[in-house]
C-alpha cells in the first residue's frame, strides 16, 4: 500500500552524549494528516527525539528525514515548515503575548501587516485576545502553553512537534489544550508528533503510537493494535454486594485493581476466568448486579511493554 510521502522519517536513529546512550535504534514515521504519539516515561528520550527531528541535534547514528531532506544540513529552511512546542512552554515572562508572537513572526520573515493579523486571530482563537498586551508573567501555566501553541502555529507549519504540551496543566486546561490539538489536526491537514507520558492523551489523540523506554523503541503501531498485541490482561468491572469473602480468596490470575462502593475493577489474565470469578462471588453469598468486561487497552499494553523490557 502506498500513501502520501511521510513528513518525517526516523530510521535506526541513535544519540549518544559521551558515554551515555540517550537513544538507540529509533524508527518511526509521521504521515500527513496523522497524529503520532511518542509515549514514554520522563527521561525516555522524547525531548531528544524532537530535537533530532528538527535538526537541533545531530544523531550519532541512523538517519532523520524531515520532508525528505536532512534537517542537519538544511535545518534552517526546513524549520520554516515545522512548528514546535517545547516542554514547559518556554516563553519569556518579560514579554507580552503579542510581543512574543510578533518577534517569532519576524524570525519567520512574515510581512508586518500579515503577522499582526495572524497574531490577533490566533490570540482570539485561544481566548487570549483581551490579554494580548499583558506580560506573560501574569499568565497561568495553561495560558502560557496556549501562547506556545500559538507561536508554533503562527507560520502555518506542515508538521507540528509537541513536547509534552499538557504536562503540568490542571485537568481543565489539559482538556482544553487536547481539544485544540484535535481541532488543529482536523483543520490544518499536516502531521503532528506528540510527545507525552499520558496514556489517556495518547489513546485519545493519536493515530499511531511509538512507545519508548530508556531511549529504545518498544513498539510502534495504532493504539488498538498495540492493545490487542500487548495487553495480556483483560479488565472487568463487577458491581456486587457481599463480595468480601471472595476478595479474601480470589482465583489465581485475578487481581483487584480498584474498589469504589459496590464497583470492583479486576484485572484478569484470561477472560475465561470471568465466569469463575462471578460463580465464586455468588457461591459465597454475594449478589452480583452487573458484570462488564472491557476491551484490552493501551494502558495494559504500555505496562506490559515496560514489564517485559529488562531494567
Amino acid at each position: 500500500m502506498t500513501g502520501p510521502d511521510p513528513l518525517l522519517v526516523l530510521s535506526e536513529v541513535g544519540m549518544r552524549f559521551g558515554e551515555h546512550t540517550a537513544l538507540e535504534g529509533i524508527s518511526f514515521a509521521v504521515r500527513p494528516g496523522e497524529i503520532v504519539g511518542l509515549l514514554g516515561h520522563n527521561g525516555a528520550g522524547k525531548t531528544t527525539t524532537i530535537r533530532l527531528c528538527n535538526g537541533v541535534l545531530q544523531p550519532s547514528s541512523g538517519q532523520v528525514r524531515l520532508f525528505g531532506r536532512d534537517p542537519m544540513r538544511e535545518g534552517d529552511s526546513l524549520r520554516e515548515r515545522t512548528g514546535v512546542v517545547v516542554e514547559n512552554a518556554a516563553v519569556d515572562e518579560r514579554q507580552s503575548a503579542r510581543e512574543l508572537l510578533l518577534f517569532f513572526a519576524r524570525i519567520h520573515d512574515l510581512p508586518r501587516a500579515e503577522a499582526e493579523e495572524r497574531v490577533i486571530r490566533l490570540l482570539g482563537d485561544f481566548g487570549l485576545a483581551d490579554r494580548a498586551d499583558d506580560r506573560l508573567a501574569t499568565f497561568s501555566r495553561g495560558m502560557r502553553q496556549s501562547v506556545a501553541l500559538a507561536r508554533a502555529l503562527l507560520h502555518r507549519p506542515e508538521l507540528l512537534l509537541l513536547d509534552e504540551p499538557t504536562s503540568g496543566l490542571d485537568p481543565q486546561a489539559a482538556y482544553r489544550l487536547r481539544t485544540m490539538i484535535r481541532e488543529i489536526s482536523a483543520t490544518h491537514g499536516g502531521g503532528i508528533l506528540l510527545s507525552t507520558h499520558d496514556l489517556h492523551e495518547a489513546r485519545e489523540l493519536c493515530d499511531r503510537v511509538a512507545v519508548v523506554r530508556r531511549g529504545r523503541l518498544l513498539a510502534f503501531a495504532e493504539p488498538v493494535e498495540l492493545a490487542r498485541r500487548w495487553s495480556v490482561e483483560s479488565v472487568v468491572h463487577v458491581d456486587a454486594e457481599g463480595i468480601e469473602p471472595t476478595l479474601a480468596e480470589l482465583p489465581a490470575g485475578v487481581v483487584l485493581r480498584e474498589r469504589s462502593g459496590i464497583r470492583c475493577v479486576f484485572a484478569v489474565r484470561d477472560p475465561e476466568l470471568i465466569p469463575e470469578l462471578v460463580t465464586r462471588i455468588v457461591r459465597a453469598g454475594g449478589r452480583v448486579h452487573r458484570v462488564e468486561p472491557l476491551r484490552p487497552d493501551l494502558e495494559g499494553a504500555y505496562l506490559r511493554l515496560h514489564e517485559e523490557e529488562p531494567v
Partner: protein
Amino acid sequence: MRPRIAFAFAERDIRLAIRTPSVYLPLISTPVVSLVVLPVVLVFVTRAFGDSALAGTLIGWMPRALSAQLDAFPAADRLTVLTLRYFLAPLYLITPVIVTNTIAADGFAGEKERKTLEPLLHSPATDAELLTGKMLAAWLPAVVVGIGGFLAYTAVVDILTAITMGQLLLPSPSWVVLAVWTAPAMSALALGAMVLLSARAGTFQGAYQLGTIVVLPPILLIAGQVLGLFVLNTLFVFVLGAVSWILAVGILAFGARRITRSSMLGLTH
C-alpha cells in the same frame, strides 16, 4: 546571513534587558557613579590638595612626557588635570565593558537559565543570525552608553573646571580616540570573553560573576598609570584599541566556530 533577522534578535534582547532590574541597575549605576559622581568628588578633592607636597610627589612620578604637558598648567591645577584627563581614562573604560558583560550574561546564560533558548533554536534562524543578534545586543548598547558617558563626563568636567580653573579640559584627542575607538574595542573583547564563559555558566549570576574578569585590563591600566609606567596619551590609547580589536575578532571568531545549537543547549556529543 539575513541582517534583519540578526537585528530582530538584538532588538528583542535589548528590550528584555532594560526590563530586568538585575540587568538595568548596573547599566545605570556604573556610568552615573564613575562618570558623574566620581569626577565631581575628585574635582573638589584635587582642588583641596592641589598645592600639597603629596601632589608634587605624585606628579613627580609621572613620565617626563606627561609632566611636560602638566607644566603648561598652574601648579595648583596640575593634580586636577592629571586626575580628570589621565587617571580617570581607564576607569571610563569600565563602563562599556560592564554594559557588555551584563547584557551578554543575560542573553546567553540568562536565556539558558530561564529555559527560553530552546524555541529560538527550533526557529528557522541560522546559528550565525542568532549569535550575531545576541552579540549585537550586548555590544551596541555598550557603544551608545560609552559615547553617552563620554559626553556626560566631558560636560561635567568642563563645567567644574570652567568654574574652578577658568578653562575647559575636555575633549582632548586621547579621550576622543578612547571613546570612539578603544572603548568599543574593549567592549568587543569583553563580549568575546563572555561568549566563551557563558557556555560554562549555567546562570545569569554565574556568567556575570565569571565575566567580571573583563574589568581587569582597565584596572591594570589604572595601576600602570598611577605607578608611572605609561601614560594614556593619544598614541597609547590608539594602539590599545587596535590590540583589543585584533584580540576581540580572534576570540569572537574562535567562539563562534565552537558554538552550535547543541552547545548552546549545553549538550555535547
